[in-house]
């Protein structure tokens, strides 16, 4: 049997280095949505630090840690015309809150969304995944304009397509679409998202990741297998058995990003168990690469625990490739 090459990666967020957390608190205050007044050199220093943390742990495909993102939604929504930000609500089952974006007018991209951040990260490290979102942004927003989900998702998809093109111009090889809400979606949402991905990819020469987390992927199988993406990210912490069975039952001709250590607890996994689980997944999938990662972004952890978690991940799989 030919085994896939196992490559450790991260999902997206990384806890802000404590000094940078204090810096942001000072320049942005406690209430604002963020963005303005941040010194680029200071930001670049923080990004370099979290990329170094990832590299030292053994990660090979990186994220910039989303250090300016206050949550998955508002960072995208505040840069898109037509959104307004509203009150706080709980982010899935986490003790983490986000501001609800409200759609008040036709959504349009009039400026870069994450391109400037990507440029900073890319100057430090080439193997960077740029993270965007489409369906989840639509699903967790309050729509006061479109009145139907398809139009809303499609307009966001067009915006993400423009952004992705710009990212590729700046060097991006990997585009990741984060879609936790897809795991709570209805069947008709899946066909909307399938079309949306075609729109996002159009004319974009990059490897596409569709990443899900917070629960098992039962609701998106087998439909997700027809999505035009190269890698599907699944949460093997919350849904190990179920996701394994889904892969067995339906087979998969795409690469997998397996969220294999728990990004939401400071409890450290047993390395042997992680290794066995990765091997079990590796036996089922047959892509060239099997990406392994924490199941979620790491911002749920205190700073010092994030790198410890990544070390567990990387050391567990360290000898699989040999």
């Amino acid at each position, binding site marked *: 049997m030919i085994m896939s090459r196992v490559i450790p990666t991260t999902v997206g967020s990384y*806890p802000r280095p*404590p000094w940078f*957390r204090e810096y*942001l*608190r000072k320049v*942005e*205050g*406690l*209430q*604002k*949505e*963020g963005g303005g007044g941040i010194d680029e050199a200071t930001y670049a220093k923080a990004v370099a630090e979290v990329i170094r943390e990832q590299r030292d742990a053994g990660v090979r495909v990186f994220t910039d840690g989303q250090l300016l993102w*206050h*949550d998955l939604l508002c960072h995208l929504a505040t840069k898109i015309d037509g959104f307004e930000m509203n009150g*706080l609500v*709980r982010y899935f*089952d986490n*003790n*983490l*809150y*986000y*501001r609800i974006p409200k759609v008040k007018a036709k959504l349009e991209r009039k400026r870069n969304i994450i391109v400037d951040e990507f440029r900073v990260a890319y100057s430090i490290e080439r193997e960077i995944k740029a993270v965007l979102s489409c369906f989840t942004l639509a699903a967790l927003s309050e729509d006061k304009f479109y009145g139907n989900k398809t139009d809303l998702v499609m307009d966001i998809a067009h915006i993400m397509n423009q952004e992705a093109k710009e990212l590729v111009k700046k060097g991006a090889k990997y585009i990741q679409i984060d879609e936790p809400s897809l795991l709570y979606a209805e069947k008709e949402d899946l066909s909307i998202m399938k079309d949306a991905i075609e729109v996002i990819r159009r004319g974009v020469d990059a490897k596409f990741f569709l990443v899900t987390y917070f629960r098992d992927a039962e609701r998106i199988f087998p439909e997700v297998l027809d999505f035009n993406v190269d890698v599907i990210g699944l949460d093997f912490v919350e849904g190990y058995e179920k996701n394994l069975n889904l892969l067995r039952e339906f087979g998969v001709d795409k690469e997998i990003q397996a969220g294999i250590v728990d990004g939401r*607890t*400071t*409890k*450290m996994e047993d390395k042997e168990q992680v290794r066995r689980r990765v091997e079990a997944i590796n036996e089922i999938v047959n892509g060239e690469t099997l990406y392994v990662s924490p199941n979620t972004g790491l*911002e*749920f*952890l*205190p*700073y*010092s*625990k994030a790198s410890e978690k990544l070390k567990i991940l990387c050391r567990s799989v360290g000898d699989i490739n040999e």
Partner: protein
Amino acid sequence: MNRRLLPTTVVGSYPKPNWLRRLIREYEKGEISDKVMRRAYDDAVKAVVKEQELAGVDILWDGEMRRDEMTSYFARRIEGFTIYGEVRVWGNNYYPKPAIVDELRYKDELAVSDYKFLRKITDREIKVPITGPYTLVDWSFNEYYRTREEAVYALAEVINQELRRLVDEGANYIQIDDPAVPTHPEEIEVAKNSIEIVTRGVNAYIGMHMCYGDYSKIYPEILEFDVDQIDLEFANRGFKDVEIFKEYEFTKDLGFGCVDVHTRRIESVEEIKDNIRKAFSIVEPKRVYVDPDCGLKLLPSEVAFEKLRNMCQAARELREDLEG
């Protein structure tokens, strides 16, 4: 408990005076001694108690001058917890999130000395608020116990010891702050069992404060909790939730959050009277306790004082109307 009609109370916290904040910062930098800091806290409590008395509050607490935060403050005083660092709640707001790394055991008292100090400086009735085990566990990492449930029950035993000590010292009104309970309706049984452990053998009037989540998902189940009073926020939600509680007979006393702590606007006496009357559609007036939605610590202290004063005046006028 035999109290006058519509007793007024607070949920717990009160704005810290600016001079105290400055001293705390200096203390953290090691610039002032423990002894000076302790005296500063005592003085702050005296000032805050006086303000509550002037506002007309019947049942008061020390404003939580000594508590920085409602999770880590307790976690630092209970064996088995450690704190690795801060974790985000939203935006630029973080809290030191505790982790359970060993068996949870009673170490230091949590509120006994605060209670004893307060007893010396006021004749008013006292309510002692303490964070509930369910919420403490929900807001912590669990590295030690096999399940969340086990952790909750172990912590409930610790809190129970503290409550017994408080009662031994004379405390007769304890409030369990459990805002995490309505955010996990699927674990309502665990929360209920935890309260049973917490209150076992505790001979005092017990209230339970909850201010997040969807109340409709835990009602009427919360009526089965082993407490005398349920205290909820209503003002922040525009009193829409009153409807939820009309559906079944409300069999506890009701702590009725009638003043919004999330806005600096000072509600008028008339407005607050109207607000309180809404509680009477849930329970008869003699079962109603009047208080703000939640702790007042995020408000400027003048605003906190005005809100409390108007609230107490509103209760007084309604009381006179009702007693005829």
